[in-house]
């Protein structure tokens, strides 16, 4: 799976008017399928540190486009498991060190391909081992580190909740067992990261940023705390900040006075969906913006019209269109960025 940008650019095809913009599913499927054949490009090799996340991004797009079997399932499983390290965490590729970011992606891949049973067969107590790696990264103040080197960020806290819940190891999923993590401390940390505008930052005192709003909102959603934490006033305040991210082009930016970007569109709109305020932006214009970021000939989606496409933006573009109710896609779960039918089965949402 290549994470290299390109080969094409997101744009409106020649002779096509914005009015007949359509989602080119066949092209996107072929784009994902071809990614792993680009080994003659230097960038394929320079992006190996993202490989397992790349598989996750490609797989989400395929699932949502109802082509979940477009990648060889055995190959996907073997690759994901080849990234598992002795400490229970996953690296980005075989031989790469374990890190929270890639552990989340690998767990999500195992969940989407229905392979937890196979994991247990190949790695005795595999789920528990992975959960142990994640839980072991929680810090005394409730937040999580990315790995043993200690960088902390609300992204990692979200990653922990996401993976632990898919694995079935969140405290509320095992009420009779000693909890693996200190949930109240983690929630208190999220509170410490909240700002006057209702948004959240990377750490206490940090400026609100829509990526961080997504991770904190999704962590609260997964923990079942979103309603009590925010209340209607809090949802209005956060919803107002999020809705101001939509710009005249229809796309959304990540912070005030920044450029629009398809992936920021996803962090913003998924957060709005989790607080029931998605109707506070213009979904027709946003849909159009995302469709304009497609490469209509070779597939793939870019951050902005005219830029190089890549699988990362393809994933979040497709997920965004799903959230906006595009008729050709299945429903996405905004807290997980995975098909809803899969998260429903695993975490009962």
């Amino acid at each position, binding site marked *: 799976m290549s*994470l*290299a*940008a*390109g080969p*094409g650019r997101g744009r409106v095809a020649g002779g096509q008017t914005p009015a007949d913009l359509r989602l080119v599913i066949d092209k996107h499927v072929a784009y994902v399928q071809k990614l792993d054949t680009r080994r*003659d*490009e*230097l*960038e394929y*090799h*320079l*992006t*190996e*540190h*993202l490989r397992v*996340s790349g598989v996750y991004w490609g797989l989400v797009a395929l699932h949502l486009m109802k082509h979940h079997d477009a990648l060889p399932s055995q190959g996907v499983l073997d690759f994901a498991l080849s990234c598992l390290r002795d400490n229970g965490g996953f690296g*980005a590729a075989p*031989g*790469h*060190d374990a890190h929270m*970011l890639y552990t989340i992606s690998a767990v999500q891949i195992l969940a989407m391909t229905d392979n937890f049973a196979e994991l247990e067969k190949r790695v005795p107590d595999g789920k528990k081992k992975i959960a142990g790696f994640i839980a072991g990264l929680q810090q005394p103040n409730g937040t999580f580190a990315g790995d043993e*080197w*200690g*960088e902390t960020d609300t*992204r990692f806290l979200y990653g922990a909740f996401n993976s632990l819940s898919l694995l079935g190891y969140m405290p509320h999923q095992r009420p009779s067992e000693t909890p693996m993590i200190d949930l109240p401390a983690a929630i*208190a940390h999220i*509170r*410490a990261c*909240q*700002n*006057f*505008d*209702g948004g959240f*930052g*990377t*750490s*206490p*005192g*940090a*400026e609100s940023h829509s990526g961080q709003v997504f991770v904190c909102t999704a962590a609260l959603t997964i923990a079942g705390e979103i309603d009590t934490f925010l209340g209607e*006033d*809090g949802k*209005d305040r956060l*919803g*107002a900040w999020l*809705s*101001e991210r*939509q710009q*005249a082009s229809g796309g959304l930016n990540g*912070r*005030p*006075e*920044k450029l629009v970007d398809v*992936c920021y569109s996803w962090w913003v709109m998924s957060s709005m969906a989790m607080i029931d*305020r998605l109707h*506070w932006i*213009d979904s027709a214009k946003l849909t159009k913006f995302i469709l304009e970021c497609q490469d209509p000939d070779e597939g793939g989606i870019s951050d902005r019209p005219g*830029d*190089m496409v*890549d699988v990362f933006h393809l994933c979040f573009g497709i997920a965004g269109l799903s959230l906006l109710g595009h008729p050709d896609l299945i429903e996405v779960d905004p807290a997980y960025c995975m098909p809803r039918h899969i998260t429903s089965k695993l975490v009962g949402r």
Partner: protein
Amino acid sequence: MASHGVPRVSSAAVDKSEAAKDKERKRIEQYRSLEKEVGEKIRVGDFANTTFQQISSLLQQNPEYYTIWNYRRILLLDVFHKELKSGNNAVSESQPEGADGQQATMTLAQQEIAMLVKEDLQFLIPLIKQFPKCYWIWNHRSWLLATATQHLPTKTALQLWQGELALDSKMLALDSRNFHAWDYRRKIVRELERLGGKSMVEAEFEYTTKMIQSNLSNFSAWHNRSQLIPRLLEERDSDAEARKKLFDGEFELITTALYTDPYDQSLWSYHQYLMSTLDRSSPLNSANYARSTAVLSPITNADRLGYLEQEIESIKDMLEGAEDCKYIYQALLEYSRLYLDIEAGNKMVTTKELAGWLAELRKLDPLREGRWRDMEMRMKL
């Protein structure tokens, strides 16, 4: 999220002649074999200087390769531990003198560690300038400083952190919205305050003033200002009057800025921050909130209404010549709602006025029609 900052050097747009392909193939082979060699050396514990140089070369080609940063730290730690274990506790005769002649006394082992840390910090400078949004580079700097602080005399550690503050200011001069640099700055200041035992809140407050003066539309600077104010007031031991004076000063500053450019969202965000300190339902004023956020203290409902009235009047004046500025209507509606939450009976704002502002807003900002519809229902307009 992880892929931001990955350089978009697409091979697609450039020429794909046989010669170009051949060149690319060679570069791939070189990169791959270097990567393989480094990996093998780490596995067998070959932590020689050549390994370290190869790691540098890999990171210069690909600073996003997090595992290689881990290898770099493994090698550095190995040297540090060897130095500390070597019993090299002798104090060198020829201590390098600081500019002020106040250099801390270090053992030979500590001197070696200090030198290695400084060299590594230097190595990172061109990389961080080229890839200012690469999490791993910031993370490695942070690790170097934390590790140095553990092993070196406080005075030396302080000098290192002061150097970081200078570098961070340079990074913010290059991109005043880089959130990595702002986050890192707050961390540096925390460490400097801890090690030096002196508050830097006044100097940091000044810094935000300077940043805002050079570019009003810098919400990151306004944000940091909002973080500093409660502490500043506390440390100045401000009484009610001094607090009011500062608060009034902030309103004056932001109002002047808003008159200059009422279309700037960053400015309105700071105005909202000031107003949120009057709002009992603001998340910052919740009892669950860990940090002290008080600005006016004590504060009565009469104070709240006074400020709300003052600001609503002042913002109404802003409408003249800026009738197409949606932020003005939003502010009027939002602050009126706060006002009515406290004092519903007063006729300061009439329903007719509110409905008029909302109608204008809907015309100017159809993107958010759903929000205005909900607002209409909530405010019973």
